């Protein structure tokens, strides 16, 4: 594998940063090197935020922002109206959007990209009982990119949430991620 870059769009309070952290840990459990970092802002709850992941077989020295992501994950489809989520993307790059719209509708909005529309919120509400989409969305990433395994993701979820004293949520998040991944197959 060569260096992969992922950009995640969300809103303050939605856990976008946590999500990228989980992904970085997951990549580690798959034997890779990884980096996760937020777009350092002063945003408050509700404001658009971005967070990034790099994954590589080799140690990662690069410290610049992510400009040309291989993957984009959008946690909140309302962002499509105000943020250019495709910025810097390769045409073959994968965009995963949490939305209740159809893929067709979405493709109209993001023409020329490899767009995947998944109603992650719905799944999260079903599985977790709350609209916690940040970790669930990673299921889609694993399934679609194949760059990170679901097993590693589970391990990462366990690690991060247990460290923060939230073992219960870890279980639910794992289930939700799995459900999202299944949906993508």
């Amino acid at each position, binding site marked *: 594998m060569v260096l992969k870059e992922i950009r995640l769009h969300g809103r*303050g*309070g939605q856990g976008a940063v946590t999500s990228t952290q989980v992904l970085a840990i997951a990549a580690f459990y798959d034997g890779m090197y990884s980096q996760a970092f937020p777009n350092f802002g*002063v*945003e*408050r*709850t*509700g*404001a658009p935020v971005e967070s990034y992941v790099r994954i590589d077989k080799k140690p990662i020295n690069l410290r610049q922002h992510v400009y040309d992501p291989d993957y984009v994950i959008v946690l909140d489809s309302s962002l499509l109206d105000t943020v250019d989520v495709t910025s810097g993307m390769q045409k073959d790059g994968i965009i995963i959007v949490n939305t209740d719209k159809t893929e067709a509708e979405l493709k109209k909005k993001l023409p020329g990209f490899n767009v995947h529309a998944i109603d992650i919120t719905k799944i999260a509400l079903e599985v977790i009982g709350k609209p916690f989409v940040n970790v669930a969305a990673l299921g889609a990433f694993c399934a679609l990119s194949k760059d990170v395994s679901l097993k590693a993701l589970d391990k990462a979820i366990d690690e991060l949430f247990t460290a923060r004293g939230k073992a219960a949520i870890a279980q639910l998040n794992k289930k939700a991620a799995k459900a999202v991944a299944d949906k993508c197959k």
Partner: protein
Amino acid sequence: MGAGCLTERMIKGLSYEERFVSGHRACAGCGEALVVRHVVKAAGPNSIVVMATGCMEVVSTPYPETSWTIPWIHGAFENNSAIASGIDAALRMQGKRDETNLLVFGGDGSTFDIGFGALSGALERGNKFTYICTDNEAYMNTGVQRSGATPFLANTTTSPVGKAVHGKQEPKKPLPLIVAAHGIKYVATCTPANLYDLHKKVKKALATPYGSFIHAFSVCPVGWHTKSDVAVELSRIAVQSRVFPLYEIEDGVLTFTQKIEKEKATPVLDYLKVQGRFKHLKPDEVEKIQVYVDKRYDFLLEIEGKKAFDTLF
């Protein structure tokens, strides 16, 4: 629109004008933003604002935008009172002192902790301004760290709930009383659940010669771990449960602007239980807080109506 129209009757003299306008980036439901909005509404257009570093500063002035329609300046975290001293002196020399209100805002971190030396100095030398401490009981802008205003046992990121220690170990610093002990003529507390009271107090404060001080209860849904719609309701409960007493200290005499009898008071638990920062509390800890709240309120009742602070100016 005539003076007798419905709107004016209903808003009872509150100004329509916004001076802290929409588009600021405070979190949804921010109680501090609500306080600030009303303080500058009450102050009127001929006002200059000095603000310390903190949430309200950060959310309102991302270059090249500003949420302010009145002159506004931010220097650093701890020097708002000192900057105001300079402005006060300059206005005096320019003959504009009487026509201008000078408002100084600081969060609890700024006011109780790092900026308190500068505030104390400005009060001592008789600078004229109205200081408003918007107290959300922690350093919110930097991510909910403990301040001198953080209440006993609250969970913050630097007084975290851990296996060995359960939140902040020290009681809240009694700042309004400390400020009143400086001998200034006007000190008051207020909340956004009591807006007319707040407006009245701001106007009184601005009319005070030399320094005046207002301690404003400012709910932070994010730092307190509540839902986003609680700012006003929780302010009311804070008053009703005697957690946040509403009073004025004029010429050294404390008067309650809303007195809560012990019997009629809401249990402190009602105040605590909706807040994530207190969710770790065990019953005996809640009881400790109740005792502490009552003790403090009793103390205020004891000094009420008497000359409890010497006034100097």
